[in-house]
C-alpha cells in the first residue's frame, strides 16, 4: 500500500514537472527568446556560483566532520611500522590535490558566472597561449615527480621481503570460501611443506606430515596473537579462488592467489590495549559498543584488530572475519606455549597419519618398553 502511494506521488511529481516545463515553454514564446535567455543566463550563473559555494562548504564541513576517518589523523592512524609512510603519503597527496581542487573549481564556476551570456558582450578571441600551456604542463609534472619519488620510496620499503638473518616470525594465512586458516610455525619457527593434493576434511590445507617441520605447526582457530614490535612475515595462500589478506589498521593488503603464494611483511607497533587507550581520547568511541545496551562496554573497550577479505570471492565474501590481538612478547610467548600442534592433537596415530606406527622424536616419552629403539627423523 505504501509502495503504491509512493509510486502515485512520484507519478504526480513527474506530471507536475512536465506541466511546469510546458508552461515555461509557453511563457517563453510570449516573452520572446531574448528575454528568456537573459533570465536563464542570470539564474544559471547565480546557480553556478551558489553551487560553488555550497559544494566547497559541504566538502570542507564534511571533511571536518569525518576528519577522524582520514588516514593518519586521530583514531584512524596506522598500527604498524610502515603504515606511517602510507598515511603521510596520503596526506601529502591530499595537500597538493586539495589546492588544485579548490583553485580549479573556483576558476571554473567563477568564470562561468562572470562571463555569463549578455547581449552586449563579445567573447574575446583567444585561441591559445603556448607559454601558459608550458607552465601548466611543467607544474603538474614537477608535483607528480615529487609524489612519484616519495611514493616509490615508501612502496619499495614496504614491499621489501625479509632478509635471511633478520629476526621475524612467519605465519601463514590460507583463504578459502569463506574463512581464513591461520598456521603458526610452532617451536621450530618453520612452516612445514604442503601439497594441495593432500587436502582432506581433517587436513584442510594439505600439510605434508612426512615433513617434520609440520609436526609442531599450530593451526589457530580462535583469535590470533602477534607480539608487538616484532616483524611478521605473512605467507598468503588461497585454496579455491582469489582472496585478499586485509588488515585495515596495519595498512596491510595482499591478494591470496591459488597456486602462487604471496607475502606481506609488517611490524605491529601498538598492542591492542595501547590502541584501545588511544581510541579512548575520542568521544565517538565512548558510545556503547552495543546500541541496545547503553550501560554495556564502550566502543573503545571492545576494540579489536580485524582481518578481512578484500577480493571478491563469492557470496560469503563479506563475512571472512578474524580477530587479531597484538600483545607484549611475554604474553605472546605464554599464549603460544598453550597452543597445541595440529598434527599431534588431530592427526597423530589416526589412519591419515603417514607416520603411523613409527615413533617420532616429538612423541611424548613412551612408557611402553617395546617401542622401537630408533627414532624417525625423516624430513623432506
Amino acid at each position, binding site marked *: 500500500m505504501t509502495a503504491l502511494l509512493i509510486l502515485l506521488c512520484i507519478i504526480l511529481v513527474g506530471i507536475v514537472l512536465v506541466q511546469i516545463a510546458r508552461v515555461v515553454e509557453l511563457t517563453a514564446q510570449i516573452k520572446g527568446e531574448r528575454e528568456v535567455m537573459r533570465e536563464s543566463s542570470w539564474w*544559471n550563473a547565480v546557480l553556478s556560483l551558489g553551487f560553488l559555494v555550497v559544494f566547497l562548504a559541504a566538502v570542507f564541513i564534511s571533511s571536518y566532520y569525518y576528519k577522524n576517518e582520514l588516514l593518519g589523523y586521530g583514531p584512524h592512524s596506522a598500527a604498524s611500522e610502515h603504515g606511517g609512510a602510507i598515511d603521510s603519503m596520503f596526506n601529502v597527496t591530499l595537500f597538493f590535490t586539495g589546492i588544485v581542487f579548490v583553485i580549479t573549481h573556483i576558476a571554473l564556476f567563477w568564470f562561468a558566472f562572470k562571463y555569463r551570456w549578455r547581449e552586449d558582450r563579445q567573447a574575446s578571441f583567444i585561441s591559445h597561449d603556448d607559454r601558459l600551456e608550458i607552465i601548466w604542463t611543467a607544474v603538474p609534472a614537477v608535483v607528480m615527480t615529487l609524489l612519484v619519488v616519495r611514493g616509490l620510496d615508501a*612502496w619499495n620499503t614496504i614491499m621489501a621481503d625479509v632478509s635471511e638473518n633478520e629476526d621475524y616470525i612467519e605465519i601463514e594465512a590460507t583463504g578459502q570460501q569463506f574463512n581464513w586458516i591461520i598456521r603458526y610455525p610452532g617451536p621450530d619457527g618453520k612452516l612445514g611443506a604442503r601439497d594441495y593434493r593432500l587436502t582432506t576434511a581433517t587436513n584442510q590445507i594439505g600439510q605434508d606430515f612426512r615433513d617434520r617441520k609440520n609436526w609442531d605447526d599450530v593451526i589457530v582457530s580462535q583469535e590470533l596473537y602477534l607480539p608487538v614490535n616484532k616483524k611478521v612475515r605473512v605467507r598468503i595462500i588461497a585454496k579455491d*579462488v582469489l582472496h*585478499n589478506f586485509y588488515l585495515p589498521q596495519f595498512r596491510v593488503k595482499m591478494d591470496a592467489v591459488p597456486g602462487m603464494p604471496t607475502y606481506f611483511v609488517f611490524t605491529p607497533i601498538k598492542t591492542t590495549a595501547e590502541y584501545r587507550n588511544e581510541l579512548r581520547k575520542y568521544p565517538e568511541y565512548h558510545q556503547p559498543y552495543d546500541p541496545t545496551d547503553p550501560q554495556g562496554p564502550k566502543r573503545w573497550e571492545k576494540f579489536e584488530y580485524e582481518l578481512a577479505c578484500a577480493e571478491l570471492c563469492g557470496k560469503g565474501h563479506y563475512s571472512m572475519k578474524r580477530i587479531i590481538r597484538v600483545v607484549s612478547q611475554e604474553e605472546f610467548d605464554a599464549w603460544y606455549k598453550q597452543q597445541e600442534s595440529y598434527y599431534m592433537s588431530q592427526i597423530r596415530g589416526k589412519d591419515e597419519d603417514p607416520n603411523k606406527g613409527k615413533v617420532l622424536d616429538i612423541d611424548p616419552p613412551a612408557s611402553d618398553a617395546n617401542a622401537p629403539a630408533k627414532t624417525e627423523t625423516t624430513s623432506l
Partner: protein
Amino acid sequence: MAEMTKVAVDSLDTLEEKLTREMGYDDHFHEHHHGDKYQSNFLTTYIFSTDHKIIGRQFLITGIFWALMGAMMSLVFRLQLGFPEADLAWLKPVLGKWIQVNDAGIGKLDPEFYYALVTIHGTVLVFFVLTAGLSGTFSNLLIPLQIGARDMASPLLNAFSYWFFFLASVVMFLSLFLSTGPFSGGWTAYPPLSALPQASEGSGAGMTMWIVAMAFFIVSALLGGINYVTTVLNLRTKGMNLWRMPLTIWAFFITAIIGVLSFPVLLSGVLLLMFDRSMGTSFYLSEIVVGGQILDRIGGSPILYQHLFWFLGHPEVYIIILPAMGIVSEVLSVHARKPIFGYRAMVLSILAIAFLSFIVWAHHMFMAGVNPFISNFFVVFTLIIAVPSAVKVFNWISTVYGSNFRFNSASLFALGFVSLFISGGLTGIFLGNSAIDVQLHDTYFVVAHFHIVMGVAAFFGMFAGIYQWFPKMFGRFMNETLGKIHFWGTMIGAYAVFWPMHYTGMAGVPRRYYDGGASFDSFRHFTELNQFITVAAIIVFFLQVVFVVNFFYSIFNGRKMTTKNPWGANTLEWTTPINPGHGNWPGNIPAVQRWAYDYGKGGQEYVPQYVPLREGEHDHGH
C-alpha cells in the same frame, strides 16, 4: 538567439549554398540517389538501416534501456546497503526467489543475487552504456556529419556493429532469468571464481552467457572501431585536413584506435577463460581445492587473466572518457562563443593519454601479487597521465574565461563534466601511487573515484552530447526547463551519492560487501551515511527518469527546429538539412576552408568551416 541573428543566419545560409555549389565536393550524389530506393519501408529505414544516423540513434536508445536497467539494479543493492533491516518483500514479484521471505514475513535480498546485481550493473554500464551508448552513438552520428562524408566507410559493417551489440544485449538480458542467476563474480570476472561453477552459483550458466555476450560485444566494438578509423582517415571532405577536425572527431578517432588495439586482448582473455571452464585447460587455474574437491589443474596463473583483462580494462576507461572529453570540448566552445583554448594542446593531450593508456594497466594489480618491482614502472606512467589530464582541464577552464557563456542544458552538463573530471581525477593520484593503494585498494575510495571520474563524468559528457545534438537527431529540441532541472539535480545528487564514499573508503570499508561491513567493528559506524547515500541515489534515479521522459516526449512533441544551425556552430553537421536523409547533403558536400573554432573572430560571432579564409587570415588549427 534565432531571431536576433536571423538576418545573419539567412545570409550565411545563402552563402553556404553558394559556396557548396561552387567550391564543394561533387560526387554526383544527386544523380544516383533519387528517392533512395533502398529505403522504401519502415523496416529498412528504421530497423535494418545502414544509415549512420539511424545506427547512432539505435545505439543511443539501446544504451538508455541498459542505463535504466543498471540504475534500477543499483537501487536494489543500495537499498540493501542503506537499509539492511528493511523489508524487501515488495520486490518479490520482480525478483522472485532472490528475495527470501523469512518466517516473520520480512523479505531479504539473497547475497548471491546482491553480487549478481553488482556484477551486471558494472558490466552493462561500462560496456553497454558508456562504450556502446556513448561512443557508439556519437561516433556514428558525428563522424560522417562533421568530417563531411555521406556515411561510414562500410555502412553494412556498421549495421552489423549495432546488431552484434543487440545480440550481446539479448544474451546478457536473458542471463538475468537463469535459475542459477546471472554471473556474480564482479564485472572484472577474475578467475578462478569465474572459472569454477562449484565456487559460485553465478559462475555456472550465468558466466557462460556473460562470456558469449561479451564476445558478441567485442565483435561489435571492433566492427565499429575499424569503421570509425577508416572513415576518419579516408572520407574527409575537401579541405578537412587532420588539424581542421573538431575535437569530437579527434576524440572518436583516437578512441577507435585504442579500442581496435585493446578489445582483441580481452577477447583472447575471455576465450581462454572459456577453455578453462569447459575444455579442462589450466590457463588460469592451479592447485585448487574447491568444495572439498581436489582439481587436477596445475600450472596456470589467475594473474595472467588479470593482465589480459586490464590490458583492455584500463584503455577501456579512456575509451569511455575520451569521447566525453571530445563532446565537452566542442559543446563548451560553441556555447562559450569562443575558440577552444589550446586546440593543438588538446589534440596532443588526447594522443598522450591514448599512448599512456596502454602502459598503465597493472596499476589495477598493485595488490594482486605481481612482483612489487614491476609496480614501480606502472606508478610512474600512471601519475604521468595526470599531466595531459591537467592540461585538458586548464584548457577547458580557459575556454570559459573571457567567454560569452550561454547557459543551456548542453553547456551546463559540459561544465559539470569538468567539475567531476577534476574531482574524480584528483583521487586517481592517490590510487595510482602504489604505497597509498595498499590501504585504499578495493575500498569505497575506489568506488567513489571511478564512479565520479568515468561513471558520472562520462554520463555528463553523454548528456551534453544528447542535448546538443538532439535537434540533429530528431529535428526537434528537448525541453530546456526539464533539462536544467535534470542538470542541477543530478549535479548535486551525484556528488551527494559519491562524495561520502571517499570517507568510508578512507576508513577502510571494503567494496563488494553485502552487509556494507556490518560484521566488522572497524567498518560498521556508517549507518547514517549509507542511508544518506541510498536516499540520494533514489532521488538521482528519478531525475534520470525526468530525462528519459523529456527525451521520448521531445522526439514526438519537442519544439521544432526551424533553422539549420540553431546553436550558431561552425561544424559541418549544421549545414545538412533539418532532417537529413541518407547521404546527409542533398547536393555537393561542402568544402572545408578553416578550423572548427572561429568563434568571435574579427567581431563575427561565428565563422563556419565552409567560409573561405580572407586574404591574409590565419587558420588557427595549424
